[in-house]
């Protein structure tokens, strides 16, 4: 458990450390807001419409394919740890798993889901 004490403490400290200079900057730096300065930056042109305009679905598709791959690779890690003592049969089981993963990739590719349009 003591190793996790260190990680927990480092977690707190590494969150606080970058916040300190930001707060210090707020105190030391000038603070003179005005309507033009605080306006949304859009290369000098006044902003048109809402920021949250509709974005294309492609960003979402990439995150989706990533999610499926992520969880599948997580399954592979215990298998990788045990690899050295697995029989050939066990390695083939893992390979079948990877091939299923590759099928998902091929499907997404053929469907054109991996194109940045």
């Amino acid at each position: 458990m003591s190793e996790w004490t260190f990680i927990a403490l480092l977690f707190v400290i590494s969150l606080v450390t970058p916040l300190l200079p930001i707060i210090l900057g707020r105190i030391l730096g000038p603070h003179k807001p005005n309507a033009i300065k605080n306006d949304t930056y859009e290369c000098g042109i006044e902003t048109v419409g809402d920021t949250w305009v509709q974005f294309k679905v492609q960003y979402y598709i990439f995150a989706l394919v990533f999610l499926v791959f992520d969880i599948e690779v997580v399954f592979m890690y215990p298998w990788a740890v045990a690899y050295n003592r697995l029989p050939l049969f066990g390695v083939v089981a893992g390979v079948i798993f990877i091939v299923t993963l590759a099928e998902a990739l091929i499907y997404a590719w053929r469907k054109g889901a991996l194109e940045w349009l």
Partner: protein
Amino acid sequence: MTITPVTIAFAIMAIFALGGGLGVVANRNLVHAALFLVLSLFGIAGLFVLLEAPFLAAVQVLVYVGAISVLITITIMVTRRIMGITETINRQWPVAAIAAALTLVTLGFVILSQFSGQMPVADVPPDTIARMGAAFASHQGYMLPFEVASVLLLAALIGAIVVARD
């Protein structure tokens, strides 16, 4: 109950988990709700560490915080346009609250009557992850669920791509 460091750690993690959960269901701003979800998931990862299942804690952060929350947040931001509405709770919320309260009372009663009190606890064997990996790849172990999980995820991916791109 004496206060030990483990108890304090447990209390902090439980507060994260439950407080984050409360933020998820009660916050009207959906992006804030998603951030509270991340907080809650972190608390749960901490609970896994306290339960001596660090593998699950890492997977929790990797899969839930790194992937599922990101996907949820992107969905919220993509469908943002009509979310200026303030009413996020429906008309049947009192019924929902009563149902939730009743469930809590029932669950609490069962837990306190069946599982309270100290019990002898064995140590966790050190090579749990390696044994799990070996079990994933042996036919006496979990080989069938292992392969079925990959097919399930393949099906989910195909379905999601078809549905989202129609």
